[in-house]
């Protein structure tokens, strides 16, 4: 059994934690902004539909 290289072991742990948290944070941020964009689009669509309905009502 070869002796453990603890320096390498802790580098692996540090790197692993950084990588997992980095990727998950990027995914969280991207998903958050994607959600914001789609919520805005939905809101705009609803507002446009409301406006169109109001115009129709005013015209009739």
């Amino acid at each position: 059994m070869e002796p453990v290289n603890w320096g390498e072991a802790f580098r692996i742990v540090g790197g692993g934690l950084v990588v997992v948290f980095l990727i998950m944070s990027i995914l969280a941020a991207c998903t958050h902004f994607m959600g914001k964009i789609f919520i805005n689009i939905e809101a705009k669509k609803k507002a446009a539909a409301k406006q169109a309905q109001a115009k129709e009502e005013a015209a009739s």
Partner: protein
Amino acid sequence: MSFMDHLITYHDGVLKILNVQVGFGNMDLPHLIMILVGLGFIFLAIKKEWEPYELLPIGAGMILANLPLTGLTTLPGPGIPDGGAGVLGIILKYGLYTWTILPQFIFFGIGALTDFSPLIANPRAFLLGAAAQIGIYCAFLGALAVGLLVPEWGFTLKEACSIGIIGGADGPTTIYTTGLLAPDIMGITATAAYSYMAMVAIIQPPIIKALTSKAERETYMKPMIRPVSRMERILFPIMAMLIIILIIPKSAPLVGFLLLGNLFRESGVVERLSQTAQNELINIITILLMLGIGASMPADRVMDPQTLLVLGLGLLAFCMGTAGGVIFGKIMSKFSKEPFNPMLGAAGVSAVPMSARIVHHMGQQENKRNFLLMHAMGPNVAGVIGSAVAGGYFLGLFINF
């Protein structure tokens, strides 16, 4: 030759035939123990309904592989005549050791079965899924520390990675990672991962209770999460696949297949393929994979203290993962504007959906109004991605493909 001599020769011949052809004569203690363990798994699967889809075929595989003289686990290879390899040996060789394709197709099916909406609606759950991977690294260091105490029981770096990954509570990731890094302990690590997943209801509640106050567990959260549009559900697997694989390319076999399966599900245009992935494909692969895992439990190592150490370290990894998730949940609850129940962190281990159900159940025990299932599903599915990322990271350190 006298009559007695004939009788003795005949008797010796019969004994020789019996010794070669009858299993009883060739049964030894390690194989007997493995058969008993297999029977135990079958009992737990049928009587207790603990992960029956996994533990039943694993138990059956253990029994079949450890019955003497069957040749079921004979691996195909040079020197083995056509038809000489056993069916379990063929599954092991091509499904797990040489091609390692079975875990990836399980991930494909899991992707097709998974609804990521709770995670998309609440992206901060990604962080809980990351925090619960802390157990992987604790067990990794623990496995290496064994060598300091008892050098002959020590583990190599690759074995330590394989043991640590049990803490992700993700069977396919454990199998895939161990199959490539330390195939000798694959059977033990995979069985440990599935066993601990089956015991989530026993392992997690005491840890959650020890780390949270009653007031924290009672924290009420609104049951509704925002509706997620179809386009978001389609874009999510594509975006996640690109980001993860561009950072950790070696996670592609797991993450790529998981998210590909999910894209099939959410696209809505390949319904037949999605249904096949969710049903027939995952069922067939589960049978092959679990039988293979059961058959890969080496009887000669059952008495080995290292086997018990792997099981112990796997349990440590699972416990530390749960603790890491809960502690991170407590930190998040301090910074959250809305009430946030820190128990949700425990669902960050990727035992889907058992961990989420445990959190939901504990939430209801403390506060009848609480309905935490949808909140807990977010970190739960994030945990699947997190453990696949951790597995890919380990592979990237040691494997070139």
